[in-house]
């Protein structure tokens, strides 16, 4: 067995654990996004996602449910991407 290829990507595991949140809505939204889209993200988007995961749960909830819009254009684009991914 090839030791390197069998080693799970720990960076992904770390990110996935940060997607464990206090609200079901966020769990569903973020885990769905990671499952479907993470491999498609470029480095800049991955780093933005990391930044987004620092937000408090209530703020993420408001952004994901469309009750609030981020004034940061890049974050706003990422939030739209995440929202679109869950509804399809």
């Amino acid at each position, binding site marked *: 067995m090839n030791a390197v290829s*069998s080693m799970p990507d720990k960076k992904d*595991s770390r990110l996935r654990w940060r997607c*464990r949140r*206090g609200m*079901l809505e966020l769990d569903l939204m973020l885990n769905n996004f990671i499952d479907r889209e993470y491999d498609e993200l470029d480095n800049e988007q991955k780093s933005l996602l990391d930044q987004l995961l620092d937000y*408090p749960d209530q703020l993420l909830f408001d952004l994901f449910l469309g009750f609030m819009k981020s004034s940061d254009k890049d974050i706003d684009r990422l939030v739209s991407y995440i*929202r679109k991914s869950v*509804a399809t």
Partner: protein
Amino acid sequence: MTISNIQRRRFDSLIIGAGGGGLRAALQLAEADASVAVVSKVFPTRSHTVAAQGGMNAALANVLPDNWHWHMFDTVKGSDYLGDQDAIEYMCRAAPKVVYELEHFGVPFSRLDNGRIYQRPFGGQSQNFGGEQAARTCAAADRTGHAILHSLYQQNIRAKTHFFDEYFAVDLLKDEEGNILGAFVFDIHTGEELIIEAKTTLLATGGAGQLYRTTTNALINTGDGMGMALRAGIPLQDMEFFQFHPTGIAGRGMLITEGARGEGGYLVNAEGERLMERYAPNAKDLASRDVVSRAIETEIREGRGCGPNKDYVMLKLDHLGVDVIQKRLPGIRQTCITFLGIDPAEQPVPVYPTAHYTMGGIPTNRQGQVVVPVKDTPEEAVNGLYAAGECACVSVHGANRLGGNSLLDILVFGRAAANHIIDYLKENHYHRPMNEESIEKAYQRLHRWDDTGEGESVEQIRSELKLVMEKNCGVFRTQEVLDQGVKEVTALHERLTKARISDHSAMFNTARVEALELENLMDVALATVFSACARTESRGAHSRVDYPERDDMNWMKHSLYSLLERKLDYKPVRTKPVTVATFPPKARVY
């Protein structure tokens, strides 16, 4: 790494879980100059308390006349007379003080024009022992849990509480006399194990909604503290009482509040029939939660469910018109659009009963001490062990929790447990000698997941468990259904002992964390299904088709399920309050 190399840390008090209950206790202890460690598997402000949006009850009488005795009456009645009246009196009397303390910690409660804390009316609240509607719920807009959690976390940072963030607690450590000595934990980042020796340990790990496929609970709610208690030989109390909401979004779990049916929404089956006309010809869709939940499940069992698998019914709202929906139900509309791509103003919404709150848990007295039956004594305190919040059963919710009482419970009893711990620490200056055998046991349990070779996957068993619990220990309960549940959960419990994971690395091994979480859920599932199978009456959230009436003569008692012996025991309800007269059982009619 061998056991002798594992680092050991000593604290006066260890708290496992960093939601509202854990953080309230930690703050009280840190301010009393105790050394406090808080272990949390996620960053503290990501605990499930953040999802409690409704508010907390306290008889402040800011909007309408109120007093704690009326609050107590409503809670006893809501509990269907299974709540312990001494604990309920204690909680209702302490409520105003706890609210004012939170205000001083920085929680921005919503205000009235006169500057006092705003209070909203909520179901189950009354004035004058069952009279007019009361207004008892204090809230910080629609983000009360978030505000409480963040304020408490910041206060703990100020008070220098020691946080072990993203650490997973494997098991409690105890000696041969049954004293609890701390816990065996590991750092999820590095996999490094740690023995935390503590004079007292408080479990505040929340509920176990992840037992069910359809739940409002976050993924973290896996009953970890309950599992740890069961394995330490402590029985779980009243686990058959699990609160369901009739209308969760099918396949997702998020709640669609009763308000949607209150506005005129109604349920239809695959044949387009208004199904509630069959089950509650008068109240129809506004019948009580258990009636609506069971009606949905009956339709599905009889083949009239919707969708390719015929496993949900539809909630119709589109006839209300877009203006009414947008004005009165904006949150529901947004949730449906976001998660289902369905606008309820245009299309019906697929719904199924969703598991919401664990009324049962680790038995405690009103000081938060974990209590177990010893010989003829029903409640002997376990030395050094406390529990508070949803993982505990104190029992203030009895067979059914009232809205607005869960945040109150975690804060009142987190604080009460800390106060008892402070007194305990004054008398107990030294750590008891560590029990090495207990460490070895926890170590082996963790490292059993290093086993390689063939075996079923954790994911497979988890999804089967959630489905079995939903079908055989959900809202539709008969002897036959529950007997089958006992059989199937017992078989899954056995299968889990042979399951394997493919990741055996130390760092960020989330597969191992999820396996340990499933072990906790599995132990809690056994307690739940065994307790439900034995209780041959309907009381509060435990609603049996074959025993539709409450049976006070035989069943006004608490269930206690022991994992090690796989057996049930019972103890009496504490019907005597601290200072006032008992509320005797009456029919629970609203």
